[in-house]
């Protein structure tokens, strides 16, 4: 009885997260990131006169560069905290996690700090991506023949 009352009190005083607002912000910011990428692809392929496929690689490099730079300048953390998944799911979240790990462990030295810890957060993406891609690729090769 006492325990239930305590839990009720805790629930009452925990700050409520507005899920609808969070979702709307994530949708808008994430959508804008996609729109920005599409616009940049058009601009790159028009100015540099290259096919869309190469232009999309250039766009990913550009977005990663600005994600890293803004993290270093200090205000990208606030943006990520505001937009949550709107900036974590796009490729900028990957850049942000690598850059913040590199900055955080910089004081421990080049090799034991930056070198050892840079993939601390971003490593999961690469490892699960490679393992799942290998498994699915092998299945597809065996079952569907490529």
């Amino acid at each position, binding site marked *: 009885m006492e325990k239930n009352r305590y839990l009720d009190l805790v629930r009452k005083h925990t700050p409520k997260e507005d*899920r609808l607002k969070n979702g709307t912000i994530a949708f808008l910011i994430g959508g804008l990131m996609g729109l920005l990428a599409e*616009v940049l692809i058009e601009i790159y392929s028009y100015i540099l006169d290259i096919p869309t496929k190469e232009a999309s690689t250039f766009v990913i490099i550009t977005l990663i560069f600005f994600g890293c730079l803004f993290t270093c300048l200090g205000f990208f953390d606030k943006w990520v905290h505001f937009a949550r998944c709107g900036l974590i799911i796009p490729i900028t979240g990957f850049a942000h996690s690598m850059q913040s790990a590199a900055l955080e462990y910089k004081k421990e030295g080049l090799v034991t700090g930056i070198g050892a810890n840079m993939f601390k957060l971003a490593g999961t993406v690469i490892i699960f991506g490679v393992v799942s891609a290998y498994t699915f690729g092998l299945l597809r090769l065996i079952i569907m023949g490529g």
Partner: protein
Amino acid sequence: MNFIYAFLFSGFVCLLGQIILDNTKLTPGHITSIFVVVGALLDVFNIYDKFVLYAGGGALVPITSFGHMLIHGAMLDANNYGIMGLCLGMFNLTSAGIMSAIVFSFFLALIFKPKD
């Protein structure tokens, strides 16, 4: 029209991630891992290629495209070299992203000081 599809697709993926983040105890690390696996899974039946065709940049920006590009590069070489090609071509298409992320974050970490 491509721009609208790009906005809608990218926004929808982010919204999905935000819903998972709000309603479960998973961390952003879990969610990005799940999305990469889903991206790889969708490419098994060439579904993600259609998203890229219609949404363009909107489908390339979310982290799902990372899994898609991994398996896509692997399958391209697997068609030529068989089972060894899976290992040969895994990073062919994603190398630009990983390479630039490593190099930029290394040199920028040397230049800038951490802000708390």
